[in-house]
């Protein structure tokens, strides 16, 4: 908070002094009369109150989670100790939100007590949005003094992009013994039928199928696949963010990563995040509802940080052995492609979902062709080291892309 004497104070002091001195010295009542309003303004403002101030009691948004396009209210509660004739409130917001009416208002409070002012904000972009600052300027009636306060608004609003609920999952190569939704190659106590075979010594008696045994005339047993879980690490490419308005590669990456994380957590997989940008953000694979919240919040906080020079190579020692890597990346950065190849060489199964918006119609045919050829070269480079790349048009749902992953990975494993 800072207090100032405004330019009006100096104007009034100077003009009133000049009027009085000039009037007395020159004996001119006109000069004296001209200075009188300035003198009176000064005296009346002193008599009323100087430096009136209000206190911002709270400034809270109506919700802390919303979806892109939602409108939230920011309710500012002000404690007004006395009558305040001029209160200027101006809100500074991040680029992720905009005002639906006005972020700047000038008002007065005629009574002491608690007053509220409501700002209406539209959330235009996913991520962690917040109104950054509230600037409150209060002045006395004649504007001689002012008090300026900058109030930091601490409550972030998490703006979710529109995501979808996935049904299908990519089949994972390596599973853990913990119970989950992935069909294992092992036989045991699952729900999905694997095989029917004659009884062998050592088989548990309860695995004997009575009706089938009666039909065949010999004891038959049914074997089932064990349902297991796995470790999944979602590799988020935040090296760059390319696109127009809100349709950017990073938004698509976050959208797909969120859907994948939700789907795998629903299937009892442990899910972790590896966010590769100028630095590395790492969240160890974990399980459960709390983990989902942490993952979603971490994904929403993804930003592209400015870098100088080349990005450093990173070590992947913390990634659990056997974890499947789902990378969501436009594959524009060499660093990301190198990372993925390194992960594959370390023995991880790596699947890349490439958000791949078609170039606009006004782009020349030659440019579109170069774009396609470059994408194909990158895909083949990664396929050579055993990485499956599936393109995904963000205008379409993610589900078909996941189905293509499921179908393509089987073929790729068979070809290895």
């Amino acid at each position: 908070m800072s207090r100032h004497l405004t330019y009006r104070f100096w104007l009034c002091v100077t003009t009133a002094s000049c009027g009085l001195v000039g009037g007395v010295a020159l004996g001119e009542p006109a000069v004296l009369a001209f200075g009188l309003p300035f003198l009176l303004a000064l005296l009346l403002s002193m008599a009323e109150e100087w430096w009136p101030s209000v206190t911002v009691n709270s400034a809270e948004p109506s919700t802390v989670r919303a979806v892109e396009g939602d409108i939230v209210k920011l309710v500012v509660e002000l404690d007004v100790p006395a009558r305040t004739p001029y209160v200027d409130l101006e809100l500074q917001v991040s680029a992720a939100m905009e005002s639906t009416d006005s972020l700047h208002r000038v008002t007065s409070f005629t009574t002491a007590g608690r007053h509220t002012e409501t700002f209406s904000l539209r959330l235009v972009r996913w991520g962690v949005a917040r109104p950054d600052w509230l600037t409150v300027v209060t002045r006395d009636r004649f504007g001689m003094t002012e008090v300026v306060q900058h109030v930091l608004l601490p409550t972030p609003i998490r703006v979710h992009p529109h995501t979808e609920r996935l049904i299908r999952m990519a089949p994972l190569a390596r599973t853990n013994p913990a119970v989950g939704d992935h069909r294992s190659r092992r036989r045991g106590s699952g729900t999905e039928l694997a095989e029917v075979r004659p009884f062998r010594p050592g088989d548990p008696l309860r695995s004997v199928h009575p009706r089938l045994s009666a039909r065949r005339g010999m004891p038959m047993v049914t074997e089932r696949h064990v349902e297991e879980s796995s470790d999944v690490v979602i590799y988020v490419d935040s090296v760059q963010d390319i696109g127009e308005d809100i349709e950017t590669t990073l938004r698509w990456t976050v959208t797909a990563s969120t859907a994948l994380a939700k789907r795998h957590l629903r299937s009892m997989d442990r899910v972790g995040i590896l966010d590769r940008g100028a630095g590395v953000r790492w969240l160890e694979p974990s399980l459960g509802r709390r983990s989902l919240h942490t993952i979603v919040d971490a994904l929403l906080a993804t930003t592209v940080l400015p870098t100088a020079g080349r990005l450093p190579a990173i070590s992947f020692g913390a990634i659990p052995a056997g974890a499947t890597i789902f990378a969501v990346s436009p594959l524009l950065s060499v660093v990301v492609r190198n990372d993925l190849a390194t992960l594959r060489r370390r023995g991880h199964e790596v699947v890349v979902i490439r958000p791949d918006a078609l170039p606009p119609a006004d782009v020349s045919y030659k440019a579109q062709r170069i774009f396609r050829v470059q994408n194909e070269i990158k895909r083949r480079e990664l396929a050579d080291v055993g990485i499956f790349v599936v393109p995904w048009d963000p205008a379409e749902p993610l589900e078909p892309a996941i189905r293509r992953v499921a179908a393509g990975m089987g073929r790729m494993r068979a070809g290895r």
Partner: protein
Amino acid sequence: MSEPHSQNPGEKEMRTRDLLVTPPAALALAATTLVCMGGLPFIGLAGSLVILVIGLALTFMAISSGSHFAAVLATAYLMLPIALMLESATDQSPVGWAVAGVFFLGFLSCLQLTFATRRFGRVSDTVVANELAGLGVLGFASVVLAVLVSSLNATTLDLNWLLVPLTIGLLLVGGAGLAVAAASRTGEHDKRRWKPGERMIPPAIGAEDDPLLR
């Protein structure tokens, strides 16, 4: 020091054309026109037009820049045609000068309200009412005092016993203000200095934004 027409990147910049049609700006431009053309009977059409063009340019500069300095300059300029009118008037009463002083403060308030409407600012009616009430009180008291000064001046009474202590008191108030200002002044390169409309550095990403920082 001019201030931008928008503080927030999400907002479109307010156009000067839109700013000029807000009620206080339109009133300021109309008042400028009226005052500048007030000298027409005394200095002729060409002279009045020159005064009008300069007056409108200064008022426009003040409104579009949002600068207090430009506002004071534009208001002070309007004192020229007013002084011309008052000096050309036959009675030359001090009341006219007192009214000129009130007009000065009123015009300045009007320009200040245009500053409040910048950056899509919404000014409540109570603020306007407060301004008008303050100017009304000021105008009434000034005219009464001016009449008093005028009538006392017509007598042979010596008023220096009142005016000299008042002047000294005022100078003392000014000195005290100067001391307050000097004590609270921030340095030229101090990052805390803030101008209206200036976008401040947003807070750094913290643990409340990113759970991975916890």
